[in-house]
Each structure stands twice: as structure tokens, then as C-alpha cells.
């Protein structure tokens, strides 16, 4: 049943050692719970369904590794949140009350993450979110909610300087919801800190918008040298293809915020080559984790991209916290995760040579943040999996994360 499980990673054999940073309980995995039930929350229907299946793949891989390492049986359940916060809340409620999940991770849109996180915290269920809005670890932070991916600010700060170097003035197109609104503000201020100007901003409708005509008109008629696409998922794909149709990608530098290469795979390589800049938490050309990437390729429906990474980290960390705590109890798991620095986990292999730490003050996982750019078309490869983009810059997490005081989070 777990034939796909690979046990060759060098850090997963044998007993778990004590984590230096955690002050709480839990020394040996053998004393942990026998069974864990984890809910994976993602859109499994609708246009974002491929994201959902990527989350499942990442979670499955982590489950295989963990079950091989610990004496624990892990059950994964998928919950379809669509992109609707109300539906998401209904799902987490049912997952907890009816199916009895111990912890949860996932969430694609910030509103969904906020809705699940809030409910989970009110009801004492640990939830590792994958949304990127600053509010999730800022004013809307929640005691039981942790974030496994770099925040908007981290990505904006990582890309700010390269953006200013790339072009003097930028036009910001942002999707008119919380993630887009906050990202737009941060990028604007980071650009100005780095000596570039904002030529204009436009709120575009969405998520779920496919028509960017009038906003691209605005970009085209501005003095901007570059355009920042602060547009999520498939909307970004549509926007990119419309930029290309206008030929603007040749005239302007193009930045995609919270870049996900999967979005570009839906276009052709020519279109993908328009990407000059894109901050991201992970991409499959980040060094390390070759084994993980290989397994994703074999098992998953899509080639490795950030979502399998997020799901793997989230599942891995949730289970390890329970093992350290020696309990599936929400409060114990939360305590075991808070302030924990990741060591001796396959995650360290996927993100080598970096410090990864769950910051206690806002529950942000401090991790390296990358800026990517498109390869030349001739260098884009599809084998063994699509590698169209490469990392142009990597910044350590603590250099770009907001300070604890800045976040506005208090539990």
C-alpha cells in the first residue's frame, strides 16, 4: 500500500532526536499518538482544482515518509472549500465535529484561510495555512493558525530591490481582494524605498476574472517601464496571455507576484518567457530535494510546484509537532509548533542550508524567499518535469520578514 514510499532519505532513519528549541514536551516519537487524522482543505472543484490535487500529492508523500519513520497511522481527508469562505467554514466544522480530524492545513485564497483559521482557533484545532496575505500573521492572526509559506511582505521585500533595478517606474495591477490589496500596498512602498516609482495602480475584479482589457489599456497608456501582476492563479494566466496578445511583454518588464510556475505551464513557452521577476517561496529549480521532486513527478498529476511543497511541509510539521507533544491534542500541538526550528526533517533536505523556524510571535514560518525569472526559451526543459524558470536571487527569511512589532499580531 505504501509502495511509493521511499525510505532512502538520509535523515529519516531511526529515532527522532530532541528538538533544541522547543521547551515543551516530547522527546521520542515512539511516545506519540498512534493515529492522526489530518484534513486537507483546498478547492477540489472549479478552476483551482489542480491546486487541490497538488496539495493532496504533497500531503500523501509526507504521510508515506512519516508513517515509515514513526509508528503512527495517518489518515488524510480532502475537503473541498471551492474558493468560498462560507463553504470552507462549513467544511472545517464538519471535519472536526463529524469526522474528528486532529489538525488541518491548506487553503488557497486568503479569505478561505482566514475563515478556516478563525474557526479552527476558536475551536482549538491547529491549522497550518498556505495563504500569503499579511493579515493572516498580522492583525488577523489566530492562536491556532500557522503559516507555512512566505508572507506577502517577505516576497515583496525580496523582489523590491531587483524590481527597482529592472525598471524605474512600475504599474501595479492587483486583484481587488485582501491578498491583492495588501500586496499592492507593500510592493508600492518597497518600490519607493528602493528608489523606483509607482506609475499607477488598478484594482481588477476577481478572483475569477478573465477580462483585463481595460486595465491593460491603462498600463499601455502609462509611462511605466514595468508592470507588476499582483493577480492570483488562473487570473494571472489570463492576464499574461492578454499582455502577450498586446505585445506589451516585449515593451515592459513584467513581474508576477507570488509567482507560481504552474500558472505559466498552461501557456506556451513563448508567453512564459515574459516573466522577468517573480518572488516565490519555492520553485522546482530551487536547489535540493531532488528526491522529493522526482516523487511528485511520479505520483502527482502535475509537475512539482510550490503547492506540493507547501502541503509536504505542512503535513510533516503538523505530524512531527504531535509526535513531539506526544499527543494529538490541539493545545499541545500548537505549543509544540510555536517557536520550533525545523531540524531532522525531510524538509531540511528540500530546503537545504537554511534556517526554517516557526516564529512564536506571529506563527510565520521563517524561510528563504526566492526571486525567479524565465529561462530563455531554448533552455526551458520539460524532462523529467517542467523547468522553465530559475532562481535569480534568494534571500534569507529573517532578512525580509516583518519584525514582530511590525506585524500587529497578538494572541
Amino acid at each position, binding site marked *: *500500500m505504501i509502495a511509493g514510499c521511499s525510505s532512502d532519505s538520509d535523515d529519516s532513519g531511526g529515532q527522532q532526536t530532541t528538538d533544541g528549541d522547543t521547551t515543551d514536551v516530547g522527546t521520542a516519537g515512539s511516545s506519540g499518538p498512534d493515529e492522526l487524522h489530518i484534513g486537507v482543505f483546498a478547492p*477540489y*472543484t472549479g478552476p483551482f482544482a489542480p491546486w487541490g490535487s497538488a496539495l*493532496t500529492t504533497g500531503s500523501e508523500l509526507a504521510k508515506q515518509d512519516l508513517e515509515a519513520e514513526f509508528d503512527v497511522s495517518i*489518515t*488524510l*481527508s*480532502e*475537503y*473541498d472549500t471551492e474558493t*468560498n*469562505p*462560507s463553504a470552507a*467554514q*462549513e*467544511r472545517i*466544522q*464538519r471535519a*472536526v*465535529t*463529524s*469526522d474528528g480530524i486532529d489538525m488541518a492545513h491548506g487553503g488557497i*485564497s*486568503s*479569505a478561505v484561510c*482566514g*475563515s478556516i*483559521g*478563525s*474557526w479552527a*482557533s*476558536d*475551536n*482549538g*484545532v491547529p491549522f497550518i495555512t498556505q495563504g500569503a*496575505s499579511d*493579515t493572516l500573521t498580522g492583525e*488577523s492572526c*489566530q492562536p491556532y493558525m500557522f503559516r507555512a509559506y512566505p508572507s506577502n511582505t517577505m516576497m515583496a521585500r525580496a523582489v523590491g530591490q531587483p524590481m527597482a533595478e529592472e525598471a524605474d517606474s512600475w504599474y501595479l495591477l492587483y486583484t*481587488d*481582494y*485582501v491578498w491583492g*490589496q495588501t500586496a499592492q500596498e507593500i510592493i508600492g512602498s518597497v518600490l519607493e524605498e528602493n528608489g523606483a516609482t509607482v506609475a499607477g495602480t488598478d484594482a481588477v475584479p476577481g478572483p475569477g476574472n478573465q477580462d483585463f482589457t481595460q486595465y491593460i489599456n491603462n498600463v499601455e497608456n502609462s509611462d511605466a517601464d514595468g508592470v507588476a501582476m499582483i493577480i492570483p492563479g488562473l487570473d494571472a494566466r489570463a492576464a499574461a496571455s492578454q499582455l502577450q496578445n498586446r505585445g506589451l511583454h516585449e515593451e515592459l518588464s513584467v513581474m508576477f507576484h507570488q509567482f507560481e510556475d504552474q500558472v505559466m505551464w498552461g501557456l506556451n513557452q513563448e508567453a512564459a518567457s515574459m516573466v522577468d521577476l517573480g518572488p516565490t517561496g519555492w520553485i522546482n529549480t530551487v536547489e535540493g530535494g531532488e528526491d522529493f521532486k522526482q516523487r511528485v513527478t511520479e505520483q502527482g498529476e502535475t509537475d512539482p510546484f510550490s503547492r506540493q511543497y507547501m502541503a509536504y511541509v505542512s503535513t510533516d510539521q503538523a505530524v512531527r509537532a504531535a509526535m513531539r507533544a506526544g499527543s494529538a491534542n*490541539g493545545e499541545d500541538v500548537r505549543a509544540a509548533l510555536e517557536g520550533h526550528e525545523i531540524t531532522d526533517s525531510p524538509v531540511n533536505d528540500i530546503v537545504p542550508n537554511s534556517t526554517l523556524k516557526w516564529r512564536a510571535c506571529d506563527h510565520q514560518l521563517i524561510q528563504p524567499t526566492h526571486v525567479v525569472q524565465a529561462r530563455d526559451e531554448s533552455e526551458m526543459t520539460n524532462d523529467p518535469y517542467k523547468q522553465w524558470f530559475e532562481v535569480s536571487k534568494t534571500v534569507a527569511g529573517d532578512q525580509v520578514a516583518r519584525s514582530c512589532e511590525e506585524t500587529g499580531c497578538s494572541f
Partner: protein
Amino acid sequence: MSGDASQTESTQRLRDALADGRLEQWRVPLGLLALVVFLRPVIGHEFLLNYPPFANTILVWMLFAASFNVLLGYTGLLSFGHGMFLGFGAYGAAIGLTRFDLPFTVSAVIGLAVAAVVAYLIGRIIAQRGEIYFAMLTLAFAKAAHFIANQNYGGLTGGSTGIVGVLPSWIETERGVKYVAAGGFQFDWYYLLGAVFVLAALAIWQIARSPFGRSLVAVRENEELARAVGIDDKRYKIWSFTFSGVFAALAGVLYAINNQGSSLSTLTVETSGDIILMTVLGGANYFFGPLAGVFVWLFSEEFLIEFETLVLPLAEYPLVRIELGGLLSYWQFFLGLLFVISVLVAPREGLWGLFRSGIGGLYDRVRGVRE
């Protein structure tokens, strides 16, 4: 022979009583009580949904549907923007609580008041418009409300995230089960919700059966004749719209507790559209019709989703996963089919009407056997 005659007479008297509403006086209150008592065990039964708290959600939507039916069923007005009033209640309660630190009841009352005033004003503007114009104007106002909430002016509404994690101080929640804790008592939130639901639904029923409500029915049946016999149809429509809005807002207040906040989705066209469809699916001609529509809709949605969400533990049986998950992930196709069929079979009666005539037919058959 004489027995026959007396039986006919007593049947006739029974019919009179039914028509005059003497017996009905108790049918609805008892029915509502029974609904609240039996809903949770049914929802929670392990062979059905195995999900008792879902009964809370169903009750909130039932109240919303009942409020909507004041408009559609009793006055014959179709609103495409009724979610707006649900939103006023939910946002009112959540905003008062989080942004102004008001007590929950005060916030709730403010939400209801806002809904009432807005409904009255909109009603004044659009009450006399023809059917399709009325519907489109309600849609437009709802769109505007959605736009404003999404703009998050002054940080009041929280934009697309909505307002999350909001609970009055006297509600506690633990792993999905909410308790009311007040004055040393602690009891399940369902009972309070159920009580409010029954009272509100009774109020709606009372409005519908009151002289006021009968005038609404007259307007629905024949607007021209109503005006000719001296009924001021415009004012009746305005007040019907107002009452309907206030009760929808009350459902919104309950929504705010039940969902621990308010979400932008209350204000969407989808919410407004769903409530129309639930109401008509259940049967707008009956008091219990919309409630039945809500039950069938939400129950089947949740029931069918279950097949999808639990496929992973069944991964050892790949066939099961493919067949159920594959087919049922298109469950809305079958919902659409259900609409088409129910419209073709019984356009005005809805499921509740079919159910009633089914029961009636059964009763007749049983009696026929006896005779």
C-alpha cells in the same frame, strides 16, 4: 343511511374548519416544534449525515427562506437581491461587536434596524415596478451593497475576508460545538437557535395569517382587483418588503453567531439566487414549502459532498473512488435535472406540494380500502 349523512355532514364541517383555518391554528406551531426537535437527530444520524451541528446551518437558512417567502409566496414579488438583507444582519452584528465593542444584542438590533430602513426605502422606490423590473432593481441594489462591503470603507466590513472569529461573550465553542453560557447556565446553542427560529417563524406565520397578510395575498392574487376594492397595494408591498428584509436580517444575525462572523458571500448574487431556487423547489405556495426546499437542497449537497471528501480512506478500492467521486463531483448536473423535472411535473407546487398531495392520495387510498 343516516350514518352516511351524518358522516358527510361531519366531513363537511371538518372541511369548513380547515378552510376557515380553525384547525390550522395548531398545525404550523406544532410542525415547527417538531421540525426543531427532529431535525438534529435526523441530520446527526450516522447513516445520514452524521453531522449534528449542520442542523444549525439548516435552521438559519430555513429562517432566511421563510423570510424570503413573505415576499415571493405571500406577496408575489420576486427579489433577486435578498441576500443583501441577510448580509445586513450578519454584518450589523459582527461590525457592532468587533469595531465598536457594542453588546451583541445592541449590534443585532442595529443590524435589523438598518435592514428595515434600507428595505423600506428601496421598497418605496421600486414597489410599483413591473415584475422583471422589480427583480432587476433588487439585483442592482444587492450588487451595490456587495461592492461597498468589498471596498471595506473605513475597515468596517473586512473586504473579501469578511469579519471572522466573532462571537458574543455568552457563546463558547469547543471543537465545533457551541454552547450558550449565561448566568451560570450552559446549554447547547442549538436550543437557543431553535427557540429563536421557532419564534421568528411563528411571527412570519402570524404575519402571513393576519389581516395584513391576507391583504398581501389579495395583492398577489389579483393586483388590479385589490386596488379596485380599496387595497393600497403599493404600501402593502413596501411593508411586505420591509418585514421580509427584517426577518432575513434576523437570519443574518443568527448566521453571524453560527458562522462566527460575517462573510462577503452573504451579499453575492449566488446567495440571493440560491434562496429563490430553494424556495421554489420546495414550493412557494406553502408555509413549509421553502423550509422543505432548504432541507432538500442543503441535505443533498452535504450528503453528496461526503462521497467526494471521504474517497481517500477508500483508496484501497480504486473503483469506488472513481465511480462515486467521478459521477458525484458533477452533482449539480443532477440538481439541474431535478429542477427541470420538478418544473415539468408540478410547476407551482414544488416538492412540498407533491409531498402533500402524495400524503393526501395515500390517505384517500387508506380510507378507500376501509370503506
